[in-house]
């Protein structure tokens, strides 16, 4: 029996374990795609183009993009996992097994969020390991790296729960990921520095993109430099993650997307 199973409430532990087993047993659908995608990213953007770009923020381009790719993989997977699991359960109605159980609404939400965040972190670690094959990766600020990874994966798992409750069709899930999440990440300073933006307008607009703060926070953890104050970012993102989780619990309690 694991330590977690002894420390956590049985119901919560069971649901979280069920969610984790679901993706661990299907690596072809969950871990292999980001592995291949990131090998391609590092090869093309890091090695082929990176040698031409040179250095950004005082580090080689391949190292500069690594934190952004970690964030991209981590939040995409945290979001996708929660949204897919909730929506698929609604679609096939097996989420009723959970809803008709004596788990509290908070336990249900946190089990989905925690398992999805763990998947996001696992993918983040996987991308870091792939990056380490291509370049030398250090962790300058381990506390910030861990804290930012925890907060952003929890935040996006929480948003994934919202997406899973809101979606009416599988197309809605695809739309959220492709048309909202991905553009925000790509314009969130993954592949470029804010200082490289020539326009004051673009710079100001970028500051409204929450991804900027996530990417910068994780970058601060890896390479020790940031374009935005990491402490302020961490506080804002933590508050945001808590607010989204609270909203998830409220929606579960109300039965939004789940009942009737």
């Amino acid at each position, binding site marked *: 029996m694991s330590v977690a199973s002894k420390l956590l409430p*049985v119901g919560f532990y069971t649901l979280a374990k069920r969610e984790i087993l679901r993706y661990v047993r299907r690596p072809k659908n969950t871990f292999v795609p980001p592995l291949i995608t990131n090998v391609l990213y590092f090869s093309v953007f890091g090695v082929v183009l990176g040698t031409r770009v040179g250095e950004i923020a005082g580090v080689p381009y391949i190292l500069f993009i690594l934190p952004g790719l970690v964030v991209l993989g981590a939040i995409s997977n945290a979001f996708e996992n929660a949204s897919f699991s909730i929506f698929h359960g609604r679609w096939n*109605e097996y989420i009723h*097994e959970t809803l008709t*159980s004596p788990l509290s609404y908070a336990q249900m939400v946190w089990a989905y969020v925690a398992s999805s965040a763990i998947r996001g972190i696992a993918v983040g670690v996987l991308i870091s390991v792939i990056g380490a094959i291509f370049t030398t990766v250090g962790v300058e600020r381990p506390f910030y790296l861990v804290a930012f990874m925890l907060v952003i994966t929890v935040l996006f798992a929480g948003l994934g729960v919202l997406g899973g409750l809101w979606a009416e069709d599988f197309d809605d899930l695809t739309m959220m990921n492709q048309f909202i999440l991905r553009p925000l990440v790509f314009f969130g300073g993954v592949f470029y520095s804010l200082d490289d933006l020539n326009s004051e307008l673009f710079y100001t607009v970028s500051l409204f993109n929450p991804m900027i703060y996530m990417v910068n926070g994780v970058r601060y953890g890896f390479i020790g430099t940031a374009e935005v104050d990491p402490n302020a970012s961490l506080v804002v993102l933590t508050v945001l993650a808590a607010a989204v989780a609270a909203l998830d619990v409220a929606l579960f309690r109300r*039965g939004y997307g789940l*009942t009737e």
Partner: protein
Amino acid sequence: MTAALEIRDLRKRYADVQALDGVSLTVPEGSFFGLLGPNGAGKTTFINILVGLVRKSGGEARVFGYDVEDDYQEARDRIGLAPQEFNVDRFFPIKEVLEHKAGYHGIPADEARERADEVLKQVGIYDKRDTRFDWLSGGMKRRFMLARALITDPDLLILDEPTAGVDVQLRRDLWDLIIDLNEAGTTILLTTHYIEEAERLCDEVAILDSGNVVTVASPEELIDRGADRIVVQLQDAPAGTPDLPFEDDRVDAVELDGNRLVVTARRGGLVAPDLVRALDRAGHGIVDLEISRTSLEEVFVELTRTEDGAAVDEPAPALAANGEGGRR
């Protein structure tokens, strides 16, 4: 003793449809309670409110004294539900699905594994424990639904059309199983389209129609409320309808067709001897007498008849598994 279910003025409205319109009923602990009604009567809405899949619009619903919304964890912990629809987790083999369900109810993993084995054996699909739900046959799926409801050892077992679409043998097996459970103390709430199933199994039935409880009574009481037909074949055709001196209101109608006298009466079995005596005294020779008792199905159709005279929805025909004695 706390009632298994205490329902007061329960209401549910979906947009412009009043699914439940002030349902009140009490299900005693340990009873076998049937919920009958045509399609759209509100049976599934009623059940879904109890288990948290539908939010009530008004009224009160308590499971063993626990409010289904304020004390939802306690209420749900006491319920095992076998819904009509197959809403099963397709990602895992069925034994693991059972273990998960047990875990959600706070049953530790070791015990959950033992219980999963036990209930799979109980419903007769233990050999299929490592199979996913989609690969089970229709009958096995129905058995599994019952196993999932039983894995948490519920105090209240809710069975929504548990024998819908299953063959005669399986239906008998499932009946035997749920009878045993009820005799061991589990309260059963059964919804069914098979009137005979309710007649055979239930202590008490509520007939639900258009979101209202039309009546709550034992199957025997309901049958007694219906009119029986006594058909008397007389030796000679009388000149007119014989004057039968019944002073109570048991006899609803007397019709004469040649030498065939048809008496419609409640509790026909009690009326028949008086009828024979009266005909004998009046000098009518009797060749044959036949009493046809009303069936629960006829009572059901009568109670759920709409104002224009048509029954809302016909119940399923009597089961093929006839020929066995009643349950009690």
